[in-house]
C-alpha cells in the first residue's frame, strides 16, 4: 500500500507552486510536512485530492502504482484518499448525519445495504470520542460550528470513512490545548498498517500527540530535508532560516522592492 508523488510540478493561475516534489508514503507510516507559509504544503494536499483550481504541469501521483491524476475527486476519495481540510466548507441545510451516511454509502457495493442501526452506533461513538456533543447528527454540515468543532468534525468523518491515506491539513489550527490532545488521541487510535497519514503543520504541538515516523521540510515548492523527531525540535527552537542557510536556498519572499521613483531636476 503506497502513495507516491513523483517529480510533481503544480500551478495555480499561472503561478508555479510545487516545483519537483517527491514523496513516498507506505501504509502504516505517519509523515509530517512542515515549512514556512506559502511553500505549497496545502497545495500538495489539494492536488492529491484533485482540487479543480490546481493544474499539474508535470509529474505523477501514484496510488499502489496506479496513476490517479486523471481520476475525478470522488473517484480518488472512493479509492481511499481523504483530506481533512484547513477550512472545512459549510453546507447549509444538509445535516451531518445525511452527509456522512451518503459518503459511507458511496463506498458500498451495489448489492450491499447500509445497516442503519450499526451506522448510528458508530456515528454516535465517533461523536462521543471527539466530544462533539449531542445533536451533532442533526446540525447542518459545519454551519455555525466553531473553528475547533469544524476540525473535530473532519476527524469524525475520517473515522467513519476509514481512508487508506489521509492528509490532515493544519488540523491543529483553531484548537485549544484540550481539543488538540483529543484530536491527537483520536488520530493516533486510527493508526494501523492500513492507513498512511500525512500531517501538514507549522508547529511542534500537534506532533506531541501524533508522533510521526518521518518529518519533511518543504521550502519553495519542494521537500528539501527529511529527518525524524530531532528535526521538529530544531525547527521549534530556530525556525526555518537555518535550513535555508545550510542548504543555500534563496528566499524568494525577500525580493528587493521599489518604493517608487522621485522626479529629478536637471
Amino acid at each position: 500500500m503506497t502513495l507516491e508523488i513523483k517529480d510533481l510540478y503544480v500551478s495555480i493561475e499561472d503561478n508555479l507552486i510545487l516545483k519537483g516534489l517527491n514523496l513516498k508514503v507506505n501504509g502504516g507510516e505517519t509523515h509530517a510536512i512542515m515549512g514556512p507559509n506559502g511553500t505549497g504544503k496545502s497545495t500538495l494536499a489539494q492536488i492529491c485530492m484533485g482540487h479543480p483550481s490546481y493544474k499539474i504541469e508535470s509529474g505523477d501521483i501514484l496510488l499502489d502504482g496506479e496513476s490517479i491524476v486523471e481520476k475525478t475527486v470522488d473517484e480518488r476519495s472512493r479509492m481511499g484518499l481523504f483530506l481533512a481540510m484547513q477550512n472545512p466548507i459549510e453546507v447549509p441545510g444538509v445535516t451531518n448525519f445525511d452527509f456522512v451516511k451518503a459518503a459511507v454509502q458511496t463506498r458500498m457495493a451495489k448489492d450491499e445495504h447500509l445497516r442503519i442501526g450499526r451506522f448510528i452506533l458508530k456515528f454516535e461513538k465517533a461523536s462521543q470520542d471527539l466530544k462533539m456533543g449531542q445533536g451533532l447528527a442533526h446540525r447542518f454540515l459545519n454551519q455555525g460550528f466553531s473553528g475547533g468543532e469544524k476540525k473535530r468534525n473532519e476527524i469524525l468523518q475520517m473515522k467513519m470513512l476509514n481512508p487508506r491515506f489521509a492528509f490532515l491539513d493544519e488540523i491543529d489550527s483553531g484548537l485549544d490545548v484540550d481539543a488538540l490532545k483529543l484530536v491527537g488521541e483520536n488520530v493516533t487510535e486510527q493508526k494501523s498498517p492500513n492507513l498512511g497519514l500525512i500531517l501538514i503543520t507549522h508547529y511542534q504541538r500537534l506532533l506531541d500527540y501524533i508522533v510521526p515516523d518521518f518529518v519533511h521540510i518543504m521550502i519553495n515548492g519542494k521537500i528539501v530535508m527529511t529527518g525524524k523527531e530531532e528535526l521538529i525540535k530544531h525547527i521549534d527552537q530556530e525556525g526555518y532560516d537555518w535550513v535555508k542557510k545550510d542548504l543555500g536556498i534563496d528566499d524568494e519572499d525577500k525580493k528587493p522592492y521599489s518604493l517608487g521613483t522621485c522626479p529629478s531636476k536637471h
Partner: protein
Amino acid sequence: MEIVKYLVNNPNLIAFDNQEIINNAKIFIKNNHLLFRSGKEFFIFLDNYDKYSELNLDIKENQNIKIYLITYQSRNFKIKYNFNVSSNAKLEVFTNFLSKRKTTASIALDFTLGENAYLKLLNALTFKGRIELSSLVNLNGKNAKTEIELLNVGGNDSEYFVNQTVNHNEIATLSDINNWLISTDNSKLKYTVTGKIVKGMEHSKCHQSNKGIMLASDSEIMVEPKLLIDEYDVEASHGAAIGQMDELQLYYLLSRGLSVQEAKSLIITGYTNPFINMINNQEVAKQLTSQISRLIRRKTNNE
C-alpha cells in the same frame, strides 16, 4: 371529482371542485365568503371551480388557525383570495398551486392584518406552465407581524412572475420575506419584492432576502428587491444572491466520495429542506418533497 387522495376524506376539508362545494369542515360559507369560527387546521382545495373569481376568508379575533390552500388546476384560471386577519389573530397559510398539465394561472393573495395580528405565509411553487402570483400584505394594525417564506423550484420550461408587497401602514409593524429560488431547465423566475414603510410608522422593521440557484445554462432568475422607506426611525434591509451552485461546497462533498449527481442533489436538498421543515402537516410536506425530487432528479439525471 379529482381531489388529491390524501385530502379526500379529511374532516377539515373544504373543496371547490368541478363547480361543487364540499364542506367537510362545516365552516360557515355564504356565497364567496368563508368564516372560520372554530377549529385549528383547514384544507382548502380547488380544482376547476370558476363560479367565483374571488374568495373572502375571515379570521376572527384571537383565533389561531392554519390553512393549507392547494389548487390542482387542469385548465387556465384566475382567482383572488382576500384574507382578513383580525386583531390578535394568528394565521399560518401554506399554498401549493399545482397543475396537471401546462396551464396559465393568475393568483392574487391579499392579506389585511389588524393590531397584534400575525401571519406566516409559506408559498411553494412547482407549477407547470405560466403562473402570475401576487401577494399583498397590509399591516394595518399596530404590532402586526408577517413572515413570508417562498420556495420556487422551476422546471419544465415554466415561467413564474411573482410580485410580493408588504405595506407597513401602522407603527411597530414587522415583515420578513425569505425567497428560495431554484431554476432548472430553461424555466424563468421573475420576482419583484417590495417593502414599504409609510411616513410616521416608526419602530417598524422590514427585511427581505432572496437566494437563487441556477442549475442549467439557460435558466433564468431575476429579482428586483425594493425598499420604499418614508420614515427614519425604522430598520430595513434587502439582499439578493443568485448564481450557480457553490463550487467549494460541491468540491467538499466530492472529496468524501459523493458523485457529482449525488452531491448536487444533496446541496439542493439542503436548500429546500429548511422550507419543507416549516410545514407542520407531514402529508403535505411529503407531497411537496416528492414533487421537488421529481423535478431535481430529472435535471441531475439529464446531466
